């Protein structure tokens, strides 16, 4: 008899235990619990120096093949690209400012001549035809 009741009692006990845990967890206010935990006090107890002493940083750095890493990174191309980008930006700004001045002068000349100004004239016919072909 004991042999037949054993497994069913065990399953019943497990089900009861699971249900009890669910009830406890659902009743638990985690936020309130966290409010009561003094994290600063916990952190004060951690000796970071001791933790770092146990980490062999030199060993980690030695295991990194810096030369292979640099070889795989085309630093020259990156530097060239960023420099040419800056140069191109500067050039664009200089040209934009000068074109702005061109337009300012042209607008004032048009105003003095009492003529409408609709932007820079052109392009020449040959250029227009070439672009269209």
């Amino acid at each position: 008899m004991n042999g037949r009741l054993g497994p069913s009692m065990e399953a019943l006990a497990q089900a009861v235990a699971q249900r009890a845990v669910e009830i406890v967890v659902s009743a638990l206010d985690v936020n309130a619990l966290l409010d009561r935990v003094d994290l600063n006090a916990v952190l004060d107890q951690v000796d970071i120096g001791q933790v770092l002493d146990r980490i062999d940083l030199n060993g980690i750095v030695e295991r990194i093949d810096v030369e292979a890493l640099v070889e795989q990174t085309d630093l020259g191309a990156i530097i060239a690209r960023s420099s040419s980008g800056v140069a191109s930006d500067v050039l664009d700004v200089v040209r934009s400012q000068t074109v702005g001045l061109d337009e300012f002068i042209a607008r004032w000349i048009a105003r003095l001549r009492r003529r409408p100004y609709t932007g820079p004239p052109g392009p020449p016919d040959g250029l227009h035809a070439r672009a269209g072909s």
Partner: protein
Amino acid sequence: MTARAGDATPSGPPIIVRESLQGKYSGFASRFAAFAVDVGVSLGVFMLALAAITFAARVLTGKNIAWNKGDPWVILAYAVWAFSYFAYSWAASGRTAGMALFGVRVVRDDGTDASGRQAVVRTLALPLSFLLLGLGFVGILLGDRRRALHDVIAGTAVIYSWDARAARLRFLSRG
């Protein structure tokens, strides 16, 4: 209330945002700024050459050469150098260093590439625009095709070779 004639510009963003400008006739400021840079570059290179000659002469002969800016030979040497600088640049690529910097280019008046003969004629006629009390440049301000006297004589024009709208998009994409 009526709008003034000069106010008839299209409203909205500036022209360099709306249009590419490439191929349009270049304005006075761009041309003047490019010319100022070219004068600086040509003078700078000329002074460097004089300094190099002075140094070489001192090393080889032990004598110092004193250059007098008013010396006709120095003036002639500069004139020959400046002629070569402008004529060669316009013949080879249609642009000098200053023009490349400001994104403008010399072309034939129909928009095709300027020839070597036109480059030479343009260079020789350039001083004429100055000698007429600067009146040779009035065409850039008032002409429909913004041509100076030396452009009319050589059959050339100056256009923007720079795509303003692409530059703007490039700038925004990096933003």
